């Protein structure tokens, strides 16, 4: 949009969020560019986790109470949360007792394997219908990164040659529609906005348009909301109902965007959103900071919704598919 400049600007040497440039790497998850991005996003994560550990986990070093305590600390600092940390630690203890783990050098591989085993059953690919349109509903608490994630997903679909329609169902927050509009422009997607303050009616219009104009993908942006507010949560269910009235199997994906900085509250968020929406997946946004997003391990004990994407920046291409193996490897490498 002209207001923000059509190209990626470098003012005073500061990076600018901007529309995609020609140098953007392909959205293919197996491509080096993307993986490199994920890795660099996770580098700090992994430095944090292993930085403290490496000193105590040299091969050949004895595995004593002190070492185990430090491991506990590192797991906590990753936001994995008390329940799961306790479970992991007791597995560690057992492994030590059974002689499975004699030496401190084996701890990281052991932990990695346990956590991977936990995450591997997740089906992390998007489940899209053979027959378009595919409808994706995106929800989450305030400021978690929904609109940005939607922009990034639109980017991916467009690159795959799919036509994308966005629905501006955040009719509440100031300038939410404008924000999505700019993303539509950046990514070449179309957008449905209407004057109504009722998000369900925008969803209705968007479904109409997606069906009649044969769009491949419709992505619905919703207002951020506090998961403990009953009326706001029912509003989401209503959007979902409106959508499935138009197309029985839609929405095909209902995603909750979770800020990777979130602590134990993430669990409560996921539980509540799942209650109202039957989530099919999570997106872990803002993983490019120093937060480690460990809440997604912690969650698995109580709510089993797979992470499908991770957000690793503010640029349109900063979205990577979630790969549990790579994710865990990158954390402990």
């Amino acid at each position, binding site marked *: 949009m002209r207001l923000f400049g059509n190209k990626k600007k470098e003012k005073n040497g500061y990076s600018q969020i901007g529309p995609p440039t020609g140098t953007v790497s392909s959205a293919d998850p197996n491509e080096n560019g993307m993986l490199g991005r994920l890795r660099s996003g996770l580098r700090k994560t992994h430095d944090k986790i292993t930085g403290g550990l490496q000193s105590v986990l040299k091969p050949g070093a004895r595995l004593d109470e002190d070492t185990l305590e430090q491991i506990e600390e590192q797991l906590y600092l990753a936001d994995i949360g008390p329940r799961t940390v306790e479970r992991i630690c007791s597995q560690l203890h057992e492994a030590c007792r059974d002689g499975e783990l004699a030496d401190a050098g084996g701890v990281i591989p052991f932990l990695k394997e346990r956590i991977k085993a936990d995450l591997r059953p997740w089906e992390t690919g998007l489940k899209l219908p053979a027959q378009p349109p595919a409808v994706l509903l995106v929800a989450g608490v305030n*400021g978690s990164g929904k609109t940005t994630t939607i922009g990034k997903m639109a980017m991916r679909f467009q690159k795959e040659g799919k036509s994308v329609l966005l629905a501006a169902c955040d009719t*509440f927050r100031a*300038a939410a529609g404008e924000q999505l509009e700019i993303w539509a422009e950046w990514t070449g997607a179309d957008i449905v906005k209407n004057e109504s303050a009722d998000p369900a009616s925008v969803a209705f219009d968007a479904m109409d348009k997606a069906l009649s104009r044969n769009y491949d993908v419709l992505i619905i942006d919703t207002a951020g909301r506090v*998961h*403990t507010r009953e009326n706001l949560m029912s509003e989401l269910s209503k959007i979902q109902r409106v959508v499935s009235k138009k197309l029985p199997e839609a929405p095909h994906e209902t995603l909750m965007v979770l800020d990777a900085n979130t602590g134990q509250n993430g669990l409560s968020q996921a539980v509540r959103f799942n209650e109202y929406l039957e989530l099919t997946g999570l997106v872990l946004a803002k993983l490019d900071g120093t*937060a480690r997003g460990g809440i997604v391990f912690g969650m698995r004990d109580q709510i089993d919704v797979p992470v499908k994407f991770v957000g690793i920046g503010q640029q349109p291409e900063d979205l990577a598919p979630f790969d549990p193996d790579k994710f865990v490897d990158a954390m402990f490498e």
Partner: protein
Amino acid sequence: MSIVFETLTNTLEGFFGKIRGKPRLTEKNIQDGLREVRLALLEADVNFKVVKDFTRSVSEKAVGDEVIRGVNPAEQITKIVHDELKSLMGPVDTTVPLGGEGPVVIMLAGLQGSGKTTTCGKLAKHIAENYEAEPILCAADVRRPAAIDQLETLGRQLELPVISERGSDALTVCLKARMQAARQNRSPLIIDTGGRLHIDDQMMDELAELKKRIKPDQIYLVADARTGQDAVNSAKEFNRRIEYDAVVLTNLDGDARGGAALSIKAVTGKPVKFVGVGEKMDKFEPFYPDRMADRILGMGDVVTLVEKAEQAIEREDVEAMEEKMRKARFDLEDFRKQLKMIRNMGPMKELMSYIPFVGNKMDGVDFDESDLDRIEAIINSMTPEERARPQVINAGRRNRIAKGCGHRGAEVNMLLKQFRQMKKVMKKLTRGGMEDMANALPDQFTAPGGPMPKGLRKKSKKKGKKN
């Protein structure tokens, strides 16, 4: 009536049982108490290292403290922790300093999505309503799509001017806004900056530059209450780069426990000044360390119990009575006194709800305060001799007592029977301490023929179980 006895006996468990032989807090019972506190803090997302330092200092402080009669050490530790949390997070000056020459400048900074723009509007409204001031806003988030539109919309809602310049950089906008503020004679100027990662050097440089050139009078870090362990890293780095004055903690309207408030204060020394409790512009409040301590601990009830116990129980009374119990000389007069003491603490049902074990049992049981009145009335109608030695009460005396208080003879009998049962429990209690108490209770009070009515027996047993 038996409910009364059961709950009273349980109350006694709280009042006398657990403290036997432990008049002071020791390393050991402090550690037991702190175990739960530690988990509560970690659940609340208080940073692990902060928790570690905190529990260590609490335990050092608490060793040797006298155990308050009527609460167990774990409960007392919780109270100590609560007070310590409160004093760590406070005191807070929740005024905004607005004096001085020219426009006062307030700058907001923080991570992406922490709520800066909304806070900008809320703070402006708060100041406009509570001070003789006419705020003006500056949209210096030049990166996020539609961030400027968002602040402009809020400005229109609040009927406050917003200075912006599309396509410009943050510093230029801020300089322009400061000139405009001076020209329009408005103050404070509140600057909304773009969200940024604390490890993004370029962006942090920009912020440092803004600070250097604009020289804000106040800088507030806007932080999300739902933040986990990493809160300390971003808070520290922002503080290192732009040293802010205070923190605005947002998103407290959900169920986040908000441990970040403690973590940030602990690592930066910067207090939370305001909290955001909703999306609307008026959902903005001063920060209360006391409430935050409750919230982080999630154990407000225990704290209230300890406070009530501290207030209501006169030490000498308790000690004298405990002595009597020990020697099995507890009589109906003592019982009457005790009833009074307990009732001083507030309505029975409310009181019971503070005691974790008993509180559960009370669920679904219709507790009738008039039972207490009846017991008191019956005892009042006895002679001092009868109160001291209930065994002298024969049929004649019983009828006299019944007549005197307006209750039936059978009710007098019932009371006497239950009192005997209770004394038995007390004997066990005073001999064996807490563990025996736990064993003694179900036997005495739930065995067939015991004082518990059948329906309640089962229920209370189930309810008593906590997981």
